[in-house]
């Protein structure tokens, strides 16, 4: 299991490949990448700042990964989340899961993302054409987490 909170741009392809590396029991790897869009809620977005809660962030991510391990027969989990200044087109988050069979990897990856969206202490502040604005939480994210 690997958890990284980093201000550096990361390579999602490398993160995906690392999930299988040296694990010959792995039959399925699923990866999700979230990117900074240049448009949100009717406004152009020129970039964003990602604030987090130092001290709590990595613990919260590790707890979510641990819950996934308890629910599915996973062989590996990798979570990377950016903090600080991000530009449009850059990756924000990577969640990857590895398992012997695909369904566990698919479900665990979706579970981790849904929980991360509602329980990990990150906050986005976008630079929009109308000035900076904090992104507000969505009910649809809460509903997605509740289905698990």
């Amino acid at each position: 299991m690997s958890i990284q909170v980093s201000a550096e741009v990361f390579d999602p392809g490398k993160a995906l490949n690392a999930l299988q590396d040296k694990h010959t029991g792995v039959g399925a790897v699923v990866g999700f990448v979230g990117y900074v869009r240049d448009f949100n809620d009717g406004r152009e977005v020129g970039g964003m700042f990602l604030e987090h809660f130092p001290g709590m962030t990595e613990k919260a991510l590790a707890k979510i990964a641990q819950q996934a391990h308890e629910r599915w027969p996973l062989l590996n989990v990798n979570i990377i989340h950016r903090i600080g200044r991000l530009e449009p087109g850059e990756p924000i988050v990577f969640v990857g899961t590895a398992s012997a069979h695909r369904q566990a990897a698919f479900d665990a990856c979706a579970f981790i993302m849904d929980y991360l969206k509602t329980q990990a202490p990150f906050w986005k502040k976008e630079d929009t054409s109308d000035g900076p604005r904090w992104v507000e939480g969505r009910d649809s994210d809460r509903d997605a987490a509740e289905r698990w």
Partner: protein
Amino acid sequence: MIQVQYFARYREALQCDSESLDWQVGFTCVNDLRTHLMARGGIWAQVLGERNLMCARNQELCGLEEPLMDSDEVAFFPTVTGG
């Protein structure tokens, strides 16, 4: 003492990222602390009275009914928006 932290929009609105408060016997749960802070009125009552407020005790998410003890660290913040 109780250490209180505020994040993101709350930190900006309250113009405060953290503060230390003297422990009070009436602080039995996180909500008692919240009520104490809201009694400051104005923006404090407005922000900490928000329906979607989230909180953490000792760096773990919790509910407002979470029991509180002297030396705890509490954080208040808006709905998280990572990912």
